[in-house]
């Protein structure tokens, strides 16, 4: 069975099939490996891959999977079969990283901005977060106003990257 995942900004593909017993053939991003998987009494999984032995716990939340692997935690989004989304346009700051209130807008449509330049500020949970430009470019439009409450993932600025930066 093939599953496609979004791991932050990365697209990851996994092909998994049962080999019988507790053994599985699992290819992650095209690299195949044999994996032993056992279920612990409380639902956790013990995974043995060629690189080691891990205890995992997977909780679904919509298309999202919260995956604990030993002391670490990962959030993977299950991409709906066939339809593959491109990397989220944000990749470093053009969407609201969390829900909050826009407190300052520091650029306007047409402004040329450099990488790292503050674009706007968002206040959430009593802290101010400055949204900076991930690259040099030109602001096409600003999609939020001061005082506006925005949802997490909401686009805030449309940016036209510089030609030299776009490749």
């Amino acid at each position, binding site marked *: *069975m093939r*599953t496609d*995942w979004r*791991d932050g900004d*990365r697209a*990851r593909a*996994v*092909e*998994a099939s*049962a080999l019988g*017993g*507790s053994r*599985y053939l*699992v290819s*992650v991003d095209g*690299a195949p*490996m044999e*994996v032993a*998987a*056992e*279920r612990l*009494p409380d*639902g956790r*999984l*013990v*995974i*043995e891959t060629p*690189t*080691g032995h*891990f205890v*995992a*716990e*997977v*909780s*679904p*939340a919509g298309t999202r*999977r*919260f*995956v*604990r*692997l030993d*002391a*670490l*935690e*990962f*959030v*993977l989004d*299950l991409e709906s079969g066939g339809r593959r989304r491109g990397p989220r346009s944000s990749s470093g700051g053009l969407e609201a*990283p*969390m*829900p*909050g209130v826009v407190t300052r807008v520091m650029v306007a449509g047409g402004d040329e901005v450099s990488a790292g330049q503050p674009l706007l500020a968002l*206040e*959430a*949970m*009593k*802290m*101010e*977060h400055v949204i900076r430009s991930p690259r040099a470019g030109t602001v096409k439009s600003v999609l939020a106003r001061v005082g506006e409450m925005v949802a*997490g993932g909401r686009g805030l600025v449309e940016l036209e990257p510089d030609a030299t930066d776009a490749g």
Partner: protein
Amino acid sequence: MTPKPAMFRKVLIANRGEIACRIAATLREMGIRSVAVYSAADRGALHVRTADQAHEIGAAEPQASYLNIEALIAAARASGAEAIHPGYGFLAENAEFASATEAAGLAFIGPAPDQIRALGDKREAREIAKRAGVPVVPGATGSSAAELSKAAAKLGFPLLVKAALGGGGKGMRVVGNAAALAEAIESATRVAASAFGDGAIYLERHIERPRHIEVQIVGDGVGGAIHLLERECSLQRRHQKVIEECPSPAVDNALRERLTSAAVALAKSVRYRGAGTVEFLLAPDGAFYFLEMNTRLQVEHPVTELVTGIDLVRLQIEIAAGGKLPGQSAIERRGHAIEARIYAEDAARGFLPQAGTLVRVRWPRAPFVRVDRGVESGDPVPVHYDPILAKVIAAGVNRDAALLRLSGALDDTLAHGVVTNLPFVRALVRSGEVARGAYDTEWIEREFLPDFTALVTAPAPEAALAAAALAELLRASLATDGAPGAAAAPDPFTALGRWRQGGPG
């Protein structure tokens, strides 16, 4: 431990989350009815479910609800409460709220309004400390940017810019040179004004590589005060405490004697009433300086409770009801306790606070492990408030035992549905520096975070993807096979029911 005063029959808790639940536990135990308050965003919250009664006080925004003095006093009156416990944060250090509470004929479970006012103003608190003979960090204040710049030049850099009011490091900033000062002052003023309603700023010399040590004190309001040992709170990220413990691994008996005596002298000098914390910076050379006083219960109070055996909330309530302070000799120290704060925040994205729904939460339950939590499975984490979910606290016969136990308890903790700092605290309690107690308040950012950030921003390891994919594979194969209950099973435990029992070796 003290003769029983005429006790309140009903107390309103002007807070939410884990601290509201924790206060309700002591009220229930004391036979006092608890009244919860909640905003529109907290209608089904755990602190509402566990109180004896509950009143909605306003919209989700804190200004409309948990910071809404009028609504809180009205709820207290409507419920018949005789006292208000403010918890920490929100209005806990707001003198106006304490005044309004007392003006309404209710007891405020905390210091007198003028004590909150005086000690909450960092400039005034500093003067109070000086008069009580407590060493202070060289510092200065000013009402204009120009005035502040001049004072800064005299103090020398690096220096600290912070709000004169408020606590918890909000709006605090280290400035390394004169060039960066103006922006820092502007930003701190804005944060101070928004968070504390007062933009006044305070500058102070920045002690490099200090430890943050604080002393828990309790005063009776008529000149008596005792201490309940110190807490070590040096494990901070951006001035936000992450892991705290009692006692401090950096404090020996001689230093403990000096620190606690200084804190008690300060408390006695103002005839302090109730529980409070005197914060000190401990310099690498062993000198210590008064930092500020928090006129409330601290987030990290449980470590003191576990080491002393004293319920601080009960003590607060008893004192507010006119009870006597225990003698200093009644405060015994045994063993060690360490706390980790569990926050909904994403270390891979600069520890951004997270909101959402916790699809699955499992808090540990084990001997010598305590969990103060504000959420259970299925509960939302609203965007509007401090993202603290819980505190996991472990006690042990010594520091090593407590740390090992905390590490196990954090391994046994699960919170899925919202990204949390669990990987961060799990990694911290396993680090060699934490094991040795060898860190200062800047150690996390200076030395721990670079590697940790690289770890959590790297692509997920193949095993994580394999685990996620295998869980899907199994779900799908169960659905195809039509195994009993498989299609409808909402719970991965059930869905994985056919996996072979017994570990691989």
